[in-house]
């Protein structure tokens, strides 16, 4: 599936909750639980993405010209968000990742999670994924 298709699917899923933020958050927490467990040896200081309150670990793997992400977070809601990012971006080429417009965030009503500086690791994580992919495109 293209990242656009995945995003649209996510938006569809969330549309069921309409404006019910609480249900969205509970759903996110459930999604987070389905995120494949991250190998402990990759959860090191080096691969931490610090937000103000929540931490995110992000470990990128390059394979056959594509980028795969392992990820985790110490907070459940951020982990849910992170799982969506992984779903959308993992397995894509670096240039696809750089170019992906993550419009789903606003559409599912989660822009406040990246709106304000330092509010959590989610915003930093997006930046990190993009930067990593960008570095790889530069390399070629």
């Amino acid at each position, binding site marked *: 599936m293209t990242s656009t298709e995945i995003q649209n699917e996510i938006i569809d899923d969330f549309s069921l909750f309409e*404006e*019910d*933020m*609480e249900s*969205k*958050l*509970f759903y996110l*927490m459930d999604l987070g639980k389905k995120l494949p467990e991250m190998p402990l040896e990759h959860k090191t200081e080096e691969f931490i993405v610090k937000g*103000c*309150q*929540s931490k995110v670990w992000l470990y990128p793997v390059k394979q056959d010209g594509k980028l795969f992400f392992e990820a985790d977070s*110490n*907070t*459940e*809601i*951020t982990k849910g968000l992170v799982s969506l990012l992984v779903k959308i971006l993992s397995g894509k080429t670096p240039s696809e990742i750089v170019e992906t417009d993550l419009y789903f965030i606003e559409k599912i009503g989660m822009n406040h999670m990246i709106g304000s500086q330092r509010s*959590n690791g989610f915003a930093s994580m997006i930046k990190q994924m993009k930067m990593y992919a960008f570095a790889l495109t530069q390399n070629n």
Partner: protein
Amino acid sequence: MSVTTLDINFIRSQFPILHQEVNGHPLVYFDNAATTQKPIKVIEALGDYYKLHNANIHRGAHALADRSTGFFEDTRKSVQQFINAKEAAECIFTKGVTESINLVAQTYGKAFLKPGDEVLISYMEHHSNIVPWQMICEETGAHLKVIPIHENGELDLEAFYKLLSVQTKIVACVWASNALGTINPVKEIIDSAHKVGAIVLLDGAQAGSHLPINVQQLDVDFLTLSGHKLYGPTGVGVLYGKRELLDKMPPYQGGGEMIKEVSFESTTYNEIPFKFEAGTPNIGDVIAFKYALEFVNGIGKDAIIQWESKLLNHFNAGIREFGSNRIKLFGAAKEKVAVQSFLLEGKHPFDTGLLLDARGIAVRTGHHCTQPLMKFFGIEGTVRASFAVYNTMEEVDVLLDSLKKMVNR
């Protein structure tokens, strides 16, 4: 004064911000220890100032400058009365508690601390009452000593007496803890400190809106307040100091207002309070701050404390009822302001905070700028609900309901 005289609807009607929805729910604002909301009179005074009077103060010959100066100094008199200072000149306007403490550390501390001297703070201090002392101790060679606390969040007074000695020059202590609510026995601390010749600075950030203040009766040397935690605008703080101390302190910032005469060869400084108010002050907010003090005076501290204690007790009773095995409360001092830290078992405070926000409830999550205290409890942070006079029992119930749902999920 009995609680029944407190007309909560009337009080709430003075706070426009409270009447809004957040995420489809009525806003429940329980982040009052971070900053309180502002009554409409404060907001209107700000607007009126800029619509009618605005001018730079103290040096003007014209009508607007005259009016503005008068209003500005009126607030100083209100502050004086609010804390019962001997003179208005002992009340210096700053940006907030943080600046007030830095001012004392960088002037009194710099002038009078010597290598080997000791500064005493407590384990429950806010970073604003830790870092300035670390900085000045490093600069002067004085030592920073820390008063431990008990598991229930009370100060370990025995340990305090052991730490207190003739080496102690400054005791800097929080009056009411922003993370735990603990009210410290400040009169006892002050009297003991004075016996060994130390001076005492009280961090009154949380005391301002909750506790009656009488600096002369306390005999405290320095008291610091933040306007924004006292129903006033952001950007205004108070440093109260005894004249005898303020007079002998070197100035803090240099600039306009704080000088008597400037020449390139030598500069003489102005008298207090101006000596410590360099540059154009935050005139508008200072003027509006007066109406915040009047709001508090209008209700009365006694009535405020009674009401807030009721809210706190109602919350804690609720937690005990359904959640004592799934929700851990932090801070069980006998004397407390209406602040309650807690954690849901196995839940990160950030998640709890976001879930509460989804129901329109504003709480604070994190370390509350008290990292050493968090370390004491072996945690990274807490969820904190802090109550103000405009909060209601029904609002506490909304919080309790939401927590109940979370622990039962």
